């Protein structure tokens, strides 16, 4: 697995990001001084146990949530400090989303769902590009179907097509295979890999599945709101090993804390 682009620029970057929820006694710090860069044209997975802050990191990177401190940039645009209108426009124009479920609007056909971001923007999607994605995802004969008439895997493939339709700067995928059977999940992951290899798409994926993480070029591990590991060219086994090791590390740290 090689990357298409020899010169790596940064697509998304977080610099000293802090994020806390609640206040006083009940305050939970979700991100503590996180700094990370995601290379353009690369497929990066963010892993970590529940409550590690991996989803929060993604939400902050994607302009769905605001940061308390630090800056987030997407391409040459600074995300931090933008108002709702600007954030909305940024998401529409520069970001593609794939969620675990509820990716599609029920009243729209598969094709209408794919071109939804363009429709919202009031522009027309590039027909050749759309054709190419549809072909790659093998959705040509499903275009006029409503989401309820599609299988879970097909629905998620439509979501992938939608995410790529506007050629966004970056695609954020939040547990894209979480709701799928193994075979459908593999199809989706193969497509994501392919879109990075063939189209130079930047993808940041949150997952807790080592098998899914193995499709990525790089895995970033998060625990207690901090980046604890950064691994290149992962395989399922290396990820599992790292996770085991990493759980021991966390447990040790906790023991130390309790002892102190």
């Amino acid at each position, binding site marked *: 697995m090689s990357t298409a682009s020899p010169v790596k620029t940064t697509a998304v970057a977080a610099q000293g990001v802090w994020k806390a929820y609640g206040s006083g006694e009940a305050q939970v710090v979700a991100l503590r001084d996180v700094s990370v860069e995601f290379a353009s044209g690369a497929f990066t997975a963010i892993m970590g146990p529940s409550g590690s802050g991996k*989803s929060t990191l993604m*939400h902050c990177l994607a302009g*769905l*949530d605001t940061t308390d401190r630090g800056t987030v940039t997407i391409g040459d645009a600074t995300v931090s400090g933008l108002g*709702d*209108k600007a954030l*909305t*426009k940024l*998401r*529409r*124009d520069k970001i*593609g*989303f794939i*969620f*675990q*479920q*509820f*990716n*599609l*609007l*029920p*009243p*729209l056909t598969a094709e209408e769902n794919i071109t*939804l*971001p363009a*429709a*919202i*923007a*009031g522009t027309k999607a590039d027909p050749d590009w759309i054709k190419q994605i549809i072909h790659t995802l093998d959705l040509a004969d499903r275009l006029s179907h409503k989401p*309820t008439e599609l299988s879970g895997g097909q629905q998620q493939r439509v979501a992938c097509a*939608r995410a790529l339709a506007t050629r966004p700067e970056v695609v954020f995928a939040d547990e894209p295979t979480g709701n799928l059977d193994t075979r459908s999940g593999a199809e989706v992951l193969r497509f994501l890999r392919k879109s990075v290899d063939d189209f130079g798409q930047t993808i940041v994926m949150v997952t807790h599945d080592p098998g899914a993480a193995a499709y990525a070029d790089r895995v970033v591990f998060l625990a207690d709101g901090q980046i604890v590991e950064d691994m290149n060219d992962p395989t399922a086994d290396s990820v599992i090993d790292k996770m085991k090791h990493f759980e021991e590390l966390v447990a040790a740290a906790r023991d130390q804390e309790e002892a102190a």
Partner: protein
Amino acid sequence: MLRATFKGMASRKARLVLTSLAVVLGTMFVAAAMILTATMEKSVTGVIADAFTGVDAVVTSAEDPAAAQGNTPAATLIPAAVLDTVRGVDGVEAADGDVSGQVNAIGDDGKLVGAFAPTIGFNWNDQSTGYNEIREGRGPEAENEVIVSGQFVTDSGLGLGDTVTAYSYSADRADYEIVGVFGLGGDRDSLAGETQMGFTTTEAQRLLTEGENAYMTIYVEGDDVSTDAIADAVGADYRVQTGDEASEEAAEGFAVVADVMGYIFLGFGLVAVFVSVFLIINTFTIIVAQRQRELALLRAIGAARGQVVASVLAEAAVIGVLASILGLGLGVLLGWGLASLVSSTAMGGLPVQLQVPATALWALAVGIGVTVLSALVPAVKASGVPPVAAMREAVNPPKPLRGITIAGATVTAVGAVLVALGLTDNLGGLGLTGFLAGVGIAFVGITLLTPILSKPLVGLLGAVMSWSFSGRLGKLNAGRNPRRTAITASALMIAVALVTGIATLVSSFKATTEELTDQNLNSDLIVMGQQGANIPTFAPETLAEIKALPDVAAVGDLYGEFFGAEVDGRPTALFASEDLPTSLDIYSGTVAEGSVADLPDDGLVVNESAAADRDLALGDTVPVTFADGETAELRIAAILDDSLLTDGWWVAPAQIEHFTVPKPMQAYIQVADGADVGAVEDQVDDILADEPEVSVANNADFVDQQTSQLDTLLASVQVLLALAIIIAIIGVVNTLVLSVLERTRELGLLRAIGMTRGQARRMITVESVIICLFGAVLGIAVGIGLGWTVQQALEEEGLTSFALPWGLIVGYLVAAVAVGLLAAIAPAARAAKLNVLNAIAYE
């Protein structure tokens, strides 16, 4: 189980408040109707009872007064000799005869005194001062003296010392000096806005009993008097009542105004209740849908189906009870307010005595019953939620519409058949009931059909708004749940259908009047009066003066006899014209057989269908009895083609003297070619200066006059629409809030991938406007259908033209858009403010 229900209710406050509002409105109007009627009745009874204070017995003719309608009370008179008999009965301390009837008095402005009725003329005697109080001057002592009521002074512009001209239908004009002014007990000017004149008994008899020494009523005083003793003395020709009985009977007649108002408000209330049913069904369907997982969980942990039904019904019962009690309370206030309003505007400031009748509790029963029954269907559905649904994602696949459509078509057909039978008089005396029931049933049926209709109609309406993407999404959303969209729109549909139906009839009536005037009436000016308690007439000499005007080419005149005449033993209205051929020309009447020229004195002219109805042919003779008792054998001299303006029985001018009022009622003036119509109108106006009952109008003004009352009716019906709109708005808000809640994730997704707040707001607004427009379009269609059906049924009665109230239809559509925009404000704001992260969170 119940605790879970109430805790749940607390978390759904806003929706429950909105739903309650609908129940409150319905209950309020029903209660107000009951209270208005009862309060007016009590108030009127109180006043009348005052008037009967000291009266211990009342003697009237045993003849049913209703049988002797109009201007001929002759049959119900009590000869003076009877008064003497009564005075001789043991225990009678005093007895006096009362003469009263309608008198026309000419006011300061040359027109008749009295806002809506002729003045009541009566004989001022010793008893008159019992209840009436003389404010100024004294009672009449000579035949040319009169005492008038305070209301008369106010209405006529005349006062003590002035001279007033008065006449009756049987007595010519005479001048009277006003020698006194009286008020009623409690320092009021009138009982219910009427004007009164008190004459000496002899003069009252000249005016009202054609000079006969007789009375209409004998009032008896005497603490120990027995009605039986009086009855024995006067014989079976007379009816003897106690003062209380007579008082009650009199009060019944007076309370009619309040009754009519009561019925109108009861109608408003029932429409509000009917519309609320949809709102309640919708709300509970929504609540059940939202609670699906919760209910499934309850079922999974062992709740029985019955318990689930009970938990939903308990919620409905709480709403029903609270809202109905509130509605009843507000209804009491509204009823009291309305009674005060009626009293001050139509009853001469009658003191209002608030009365909350036991029937007002019906409003409570209706409110609670409707709420609980409406919730029954969603409740039973809720109990069908399988326990596994707790474990699954809530998916509500759209249910097939076949069953509901078949049911709707069947119910609509039943309603339509009832309407048709009711309108074609096939239900005997139940025609109106059948028609109204049919309309109600048809509404239910059409409501059941709305889901299937919503598909094409929503698509069509939505197409108009699909120019933007958020508009297109709004359209799609409106079409997603046809049942919900339909039931929401139904509230508006029913209200719009009712007013459109009535508006269609009114515009058809206007068109018919215009058509008759423009096409069938070959005259330029019309002389007639506004029909009140009596038909306005003018002097035959005045008619002659008009005919003599140099610029008048021809005049059609009309005399009429509406009461008391019989043809072949059946009560029949008779008409006559001094110059029938000319009049027929002007009315576009055509002769089918025979001739109307030189009509002999015993000649009779009738239209074809009336003749056929009685099996009469040209040359046949028929016995005719006139109102004055004169009988004659009349021969049919001509048969007319049927035409609305000339249908009926025409007698020769020589018979006019036998009419109750031997004066012309109307004149239709044809102005000579080239003459100025306006100038002639002025000349006729001058001639009519001394005719208080009639005035002259050109054709356009005439149509306006004829239809102005309908405009008032229409305006008051719009109030109904306004009321239903309030409920409809609540319904739309309810549905939209639910849509926003249900589609939280969709909205979150849309916002995540770049939909702006403005776009989200527009999407909800379009959905709202489409729902409202759908209701309005459907309502307009149903209303037009309703109006057309009634117009068709009335075509033979003369409602020949069908016309659509275009202005109002456009108005209703605009109103529907406005309602849609208004209803969308809160739900759209909610959608725009949605927290994207929360919406898409699934952990």
